[in-house]
């Protein structure tokens, strides 16, 4: 059965960036239908029943997120679109921004209409220069053609969309860090409660949705929630984009229904392991997710199955490692990232990430003691559940999994001051 492409159908077609082409291929039909025929509540209900979940990483049901927003505060409601895609291994939103920007804008219109939003900000990762240019051109065209602005699609509904570029900080992809950054401040995540749905951007109720999440909305409007829910699996509606990278023959972005098997992604779509080596480990959802050993890779790609496997589907960034990969180096690489990107606001993350990175460096340099393994696990515990945002938890989940699941490799490094993987080569 051919796999239906919901958000990736226009990838690699430059024509799709143009409003006229997008429209002549069914574009803005979903938004048109929502604005013409449905009430905001009906739109929200449709999304709720579709089992669409936040595809930025947390997997929170999108319809429920919208329902939390209070409508009677007398303040405007804002939409912040999270396009600060920076989880290592993740490059799926970039494809949407680059190849199908109008699908995102259409999704924004639908969300805005459902929640009563008249101002949306798209926070684009600083390094995404080209995607930002393409998206801005699409926004400009949409304004010119009356798709955005005072009368959206000719209807009595106004919506302004602003593109805001980040300055290169991973933490600004954390939703409240993003809000701080949008307000012009240092991207330090906020204390919760209050949650952004109630007190968000400029102290007003705010919806924060990921690019891919919003890009799914047009088709849900056109085809209905039941159609979408049936594509996925239980409580995980529709498809999602998987960014496949690492030791595979054909890395890239693949759209699969939620609930597809990891092996299908790696072996059918990714063409199998690079150089036909043995599979050693897989990160199923970006650097913050716990690594899965070869034995654990018989897994379904949906939010709930990954949580059951004590990892997470996260941003859908699947990183494959074959038998040549040293897990100490892998952990070291990942912790260099987290130590560099920790915002420095709260103690366990600021100090923990940098400390762990230094311990791993010592292990790689052959200056470690057996006690270091114990320290690493204890530091992971102390970094979990004690911080303001999830960066610390993610970092701890990640390096703990390497130490616990590949202890012998760490021990070998400590004992012999070198890598047993290279030894075998």
């Amino acid at each position, binding site marked *: 059965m051919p796999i239906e492409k919901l958000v990736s159908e226009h990838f690699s077609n430059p024509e799709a960036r143009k409003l006229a082409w997008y429209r002549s291929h069914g574009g803005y039909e979903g938004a048109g239908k929502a604005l013409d025929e449905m009430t905001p509540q009906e739109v929200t209900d449709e999304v709720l029943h579709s089992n669409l979940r936040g595809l930025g990483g947390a997997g929170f049901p999108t319809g429920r997120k919208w329902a939390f927003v209070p409508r009677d505060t007398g303040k405007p409601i804002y939409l912040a679109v999270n396009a600060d895609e920076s989880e290592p291994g993740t490059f799926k939103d970039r494809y949407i921004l680059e190849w199908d920007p109008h699908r995102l804008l259409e999704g924004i219109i639908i969300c805005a209409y459902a929640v009563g939003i008249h101002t949306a900000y798209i926070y684009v990762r600083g390094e995404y220069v080209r995607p930002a240019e393409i998206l801005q051109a699409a926004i400009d065209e949409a304004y010119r053609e009356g798709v955005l602005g005072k009368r959206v699609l000719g209807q009595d509904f106004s919506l302004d969309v602003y593109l805001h570029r980040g300055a290169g900080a991973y*933490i600004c992809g954390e939703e409240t860090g993003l809000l701080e950054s949008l307000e012009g401040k240092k991207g330090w995540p906020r*204390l919760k409660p209050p949650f952004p749905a109630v007190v968000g951007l400029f102290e007003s109720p705010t919806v924060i949705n990921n690019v891919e999440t919003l890009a799914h909305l047009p088709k849900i409007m056109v085809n209905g929630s039941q159609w979408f829910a049936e594509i996925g699996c239980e409580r995980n509606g529709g498809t999602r984009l998987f960014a496949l990278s690492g030791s595979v023959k054909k890395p890239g972005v693949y759209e699969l229904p939620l609930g597809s098997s990891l092996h299908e992604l790696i072996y059918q779509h990714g063409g199998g392991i690079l150089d036909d080596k043995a599979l050693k480990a897989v990160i199923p959802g970006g650097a913050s997710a716990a690594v899965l050993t070869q034995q654990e890779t018989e897994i379904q790609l949906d939010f709930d199955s990954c949580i059951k496997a004590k990892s997470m589907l996260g941003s859908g960034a699947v990183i494959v490692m074959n038998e040549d990969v040293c897990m100490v180096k892998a952990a070291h690489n990942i912790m260099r990232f987290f130590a560099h990107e920790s*915002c420095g*606001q709260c*103690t366990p993350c*600021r*100090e923990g990430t*940098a400390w762990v990175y230094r311990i791993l460096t010592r292990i790689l340099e052959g200056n470690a003691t057996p006690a270091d393994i114990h*320290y690493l696990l204890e530091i992971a515990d102390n970094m979990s*559940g004690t911080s303001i945002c999830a960066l610390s938890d993610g970092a701890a989940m990640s390096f703990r999994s390497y130490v616990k699941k590949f202890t012998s490799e760490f021990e070998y490094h400590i004992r012999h001051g070198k890598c047993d993987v290279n030894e075998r080569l």
Partner: protein
Amino acid sequence: MPIITIDQQEVQVEAGSTVIQAAEKVGAYVPRYCYHPGLSIAGSCRMCLVEIENMPKLAIACHTQVQEGMQVLTQSDQVTHARRAMLEFLLVDHPLDCPVCDQAGECDLQNFYMEIGQYDSRFLEDKNKAKKATVIGPHVILDQERCILCTRCTRFCEEVSQTDELGVFNRGNRSAIDLYPGRTLDNPYSGNVIDICPVGALTEREFRFQCRVWYLRQQNSICTGCSRGCNVSIHYNDSRPYKAGGKRVQRLKPRFNPEVNSWWICDEGRFGYEFIDQNRIEVPYRRVGGKLEAAAWSDVVEEVSTALKTALEKFGPQGIGIIASPQLSNEELHLIHKLFGELMGIEGIGYHNPWEPEGLHDDFLMRADKNPNRRGAEEMGFTKDSLSLLEKAASGEIKVLYIFQHNFQEEAKKLLTQVEYVIFQGSNWTDTADCCDIVIPSTTHAEEEGTFTNFEGRIQHFDQVFLPLSESKNGIEIMTLLAEHMNYEWPYFGPDDAFLEWQGKSYQELNDFGDLI
């Protein structure tokens, strides 16, 4: 008002208050770095994690609001474990240079570590290097290595002084507090960041290497820098007189009073204590052959009371002029009024300096009137007309003029040199004292007990901090000596007697935060 249970103790607290506030009510002190009651909640140090029933993980007490029936544990094993973990994290990049750190002895990093720290270090890596001993303003030195990034200082500059000099730069463990480019920490309240810094990152330039804090003792006092009457503690060292040239007062710290100054004081007040140990009049003087010469107390008391008595007999009360001072305590003013006004019948009792310029002031704490007790003098009925008293004295109408504490401007000199007989009583040498015939050494407020009435009419008590310097005596004692020498009935043995007569109550009956008149 919700009732919650903290460490098995039930307590009723106001709705909307936080767990850390509720804990304080039952006497359970939750360790904290970033939390300060006068600043917004940062929630970043993670030191105040507590266990709350039915919550999936530990919660920070500074940010979590109380809810009816909440069960909080501030001392459980899980909590202690988390605190120990946070302390270990905080020491990861801390230089541990306590032996050369002024904060040692009053450092919350030391204090909490002594209580619950993990003593065997597991940290084997190289520590982060950062800027040390950097002067960032007229009063403050920054040491970035000691900083634990609690951001109390940046929040103070943002929210209280509203001057925004300090920020956090960079991220991760390279994060550092620093000045924004081109700025200096020179706002009039800059010293407060030293007090609120829980570690040795921000220390005082004036106090730098002057004294280890465990040699200091402290006593409650009131700032005499202006008419606000900020509550302060005087930190002094009288056990090592060979240090700092015998200087006793080492520093001033603000003392919490929600009605007056909250947690803060201005720099002018904080660093305005030098007069207590400097340029003091240590013994009585009298003019002999045109020059002031040291004299015995008994001789001076004899001479002054005789001069007063004689003038009263020869010229009547209008032959004597008194210029008290808005820097004197209520008790001193009361007895001056008693002796000169009631007993001697003198009507010309002034108090103010007619040439006094307006001082630095703002809409926060600093008042233009730099006298701690002008309101007290006014309430006591002293006249404002010191200028006419000086003029009358210069013209010979007043034969004996008794001036307290003042340092008049140049204009006064011309008048004073024409007066027949001028007595000066004060704590410090001034140009005014220099041209008087008798100089009586009185104490500063730090050497006596009393009260000041601040500009809004709040009577506030201050303690005697240490003994009078050298031969100086407090104003109560001096009035007593004169009154007894002149054979007046005089039932006052100390400031408390004067206060009781004036206010009809004792010091013990005065509220901690002062009483409005």
